[in-house]
């Protein structure tokens, strides 16, 4: 059975409307802090440092009071690719970088201490990366993010980056997602009422599939263009000028907390990049465990 409601489930960056210290942060702080954390960890390949980093990210997730199950949903999306990467690293990295103890070797497969380390680190980094990005979208509205991006990119205006225009384009795109989804639903229903067989016909024949999609795509585009023309008129009627000479209604508020968060994450980045983190096996060997 056809489900015409599919498109209504389109939600970009599912914002979770609860209150938490993370929700209250300035969107700029969140973007900056996440960037510092990610850059910091990207330059560090010590297992201990990566584990500390993962714990820190989990702590942030807990503070944000977003259900962890929800966050994990983003992880499942990337799972097939991740598994592929891990398997490749585990089996073949040992050949690329023949250092450290060899645990297992069979044919073209070679598992070494180094390849295991690398796998663990990549796993942590991917999980942390997904956590951080989804935390940003779950704790800030799309509007906040748009404004945050705009202000952060503003210094780059001088070198010709159209920060305001980019933000406006993003805003308008987000504004029209639900409108166009509704429209698509209506078109699908109307064509089905005229006997169109949507989605069931031989989709492996690209020519037929393309022919089936025309009755949906053509009206959708025609209507989108009409909307765009209307929008241009409406914006002109409201004296739209790009960039210079505009004032801003939305104010972003930096509090002491914001500065503290930025400072802390910046320090974290430096720590990750420049502190000589010991390797896990040498630490364990110091305690008499030398089986690694």
């Amino acid at each position, binding site marked *: *059975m056809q489900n*015409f*409601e599919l498109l*209504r*489930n389109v939600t970009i960056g599912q914002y979770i409307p609860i209150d938490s210290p993370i929700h209250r942060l300035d969107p700029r702080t969140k973007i900056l802090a996440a960037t510092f954390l990610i850059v910091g960890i990207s330059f560090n390949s010590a297992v201990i440092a990566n584990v500390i980093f993962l714990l820190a990210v989990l702590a942030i997730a807990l503070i944000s009071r977003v259900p962890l199950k929800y966050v994990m949903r983003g992880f499942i999306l990337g799972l097939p690719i991740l598994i592929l990467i891990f398997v490749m690293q585990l089996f073949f990295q040992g050949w690329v970088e023949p250092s450290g103890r060899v645990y297992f070797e069979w044919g073209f497969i070679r598992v070494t201490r180094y390849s295991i380390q690398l796998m663990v680190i990549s796993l942590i980094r991917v999980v942390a990366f997904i956590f951080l990005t989804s935390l940003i979208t779950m704790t800030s*509205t*799309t*509007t906040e993010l748009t404004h945050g991006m705009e202000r952060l990119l503003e210094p780059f205006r001088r070198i010709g980056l159209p920060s305001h225009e980019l933000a*406006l384009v993003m*805003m*308008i795109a*987000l*504004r029209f997602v*639900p*409108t166009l989804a509704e*429209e698509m639903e*209506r*078109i699908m*229903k*109307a*064509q*089905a*009422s*005229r*006997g*169109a*067989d949507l989605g069931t016909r031989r989709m492996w024949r690209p020519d037929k599939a393309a022919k089936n999609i*025309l*009755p*949906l795509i*053509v*009206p959708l585009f*025609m*209507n989108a263009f*009409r*909307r765009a023309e*209307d*929008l241009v*008129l*409406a*914006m*002109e*009627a*409201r*004296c*739209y*000028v790009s960039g210079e*000479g*505009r*004032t*801003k*209604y*939305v*104010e972003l508020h930096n509090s002491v907390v914001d500065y503290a968060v930025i400072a802390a994450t910046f320090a974290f980045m430096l720590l990750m990049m420049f502190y000589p983190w010991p390797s896990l096996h040498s630490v364990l060997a110091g305690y008499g465990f030398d089986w690694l």
Partner: protein
Amino acid sequence: MQPIIRLENVHHTYKPESNHPVKALNGIDLTVYPGEYLVILGHNGSGKSTLAKHLNALLLPTEGDVWVKEWNSKYAENFRSIRSTVGMVFQTPDNQIVSTIVEEDVAFGPENLGVPRDEIVRRVDWSLEQVDMTSFRHRAPHLLSGGQKQRVCIAGMLAMQPDVLVLDEATAMLDPLGRKEVLEVAQRLNKQEGVTIIAITHFMGEAVHADRLIVMDEGRIAMEGTPHEIFAQVEQLEALQLGVPQITQVAQALHRRMPAFPPDILTVDEFVDAFAEHVGPAQAPPSLPNGNDATADAPRGETAAVIELRDVGYNYMHDTPLEVKAIEDVNMAIYPGEVVGVIGHTGSGKSTIIQHFNALLRPHEGVVTVFGQDTSASTTDVREVRRRVGLVFQQPEAQLFERYVGDDIAFGPRNLKLSKEEVRERVRRAMERVGLGFEEYKDRMTFGLSGGQMRRVALAGVLALEPEVLVLDEPTSGLDPQGRRQLMSQILDLHGQGTTLTIISHNMEELAEMCDRLYVIADGTTYMHGSVDEVFAHRNDLRKMGLDAPGVTAVLDALAEAGLIDREQTAVYTVAAAIELLGGLVDAKL
């Protein structure tokens, strides 16, 4: 007084360089004074929207001059001053909103003007207050109703503190409630804030409150005057493809019988006063007109219903945490040969209900039977159901996709895998049934047609399936009075040819004229049903729900209220029946 807008011999030609230049304005002279409420009427294509876009320099005259205060629109450096003096609200509210948050959208104009932030805050507060949308300031626009969105657009203009507000068919896409909201805002701004209003419309009822009316035709000003002056000239208006308000139609019919009765009546109060003065209380009750006889009630029992909904419920986002109830406990039956009307607010669930009629939606609760088949049963051939029950959506022209008219109409028959000759034959029949000549239109470009013609092509596209039941969702919305009349009479012809009809409409007069039975939908359920008489007898309940009885009924109610006619005589729902009743009273008096 200094005029605020002045047009001198304005001409406008679209595509002047091309082989087919289109002359839209043809020498317009117009002066608008501060504080005026000006209404511009005209059929589709008369040039009224082109004129509107000249008032704030969105279009520039190809000949002649437009002055706003002291600024001539031909100089680009004046655009800003002109556009912040003359605000404009367009037809489709969705296409004017830039932001994902209401208050930020309202701030967009002043931001563009470089207004300091403190002042923007003050203006946003004030503008939202003016349109009564303050409590929605943090909402996302797509969650608002049409009328609310249009009020946000007005607030967005007010935030630029314009002296003039142009409403370019701003009510055309709204339901009656939304239209009323927008008009009230416009009238309040005009009276209390002294904002000059220029409203472009083809609803005659909206013209009644204007200080001055202008009627456009072929790019010229064809008529100009007060509403009383203009609406007294019925023949001329009809020649310009317009009509007069219903109340004026009745007054004019009485004027023909009794020359002393004023023909230029525009409001209920005026009508009651005139009736009291010239006719007085009814002497003897004349025989009741039989506008809608009660025998139409239902052919129930002997005939089986073609479509039957029993205790039907449907939820959106079914099986997700965001599940919302759309309809519940809906009971309806459509019998062969009937014309059934469906009334209800936007959002009351009526669109969801009719999508069950052809199995686009299948109920989560209850049973839908179409031609004796349960639409939820796996054995039911859904495509067969959709062939027998044709569904025409709102503004169906938005779903056309083929380059040529004939191909678009053939989409349905081709899906039925009919032979080439049969497809051709069906396209021909369908086109003729909507009044489009087959040879003349089949090879025309679909997207080059006028709005009214495109609507007919879309209707033909459904008729080509030769359905036994035709379901129409607001078939005449957005059309001008003449387009409305034509389409309605074609739809009635279909009924004459044996098609069962179900019509959703906000136009109570149309429904009262056409329908055998009415269903009233409220809060996702069937609130009331019965013959036209039975349903409109509960018009006080309908009014409480924000729905309305036909306009003429309000006149009769007011007459009864004033003791001029009997209560029992108010059961009149069409202009023709009202003229018959009141004409009889006038005749008795003479």
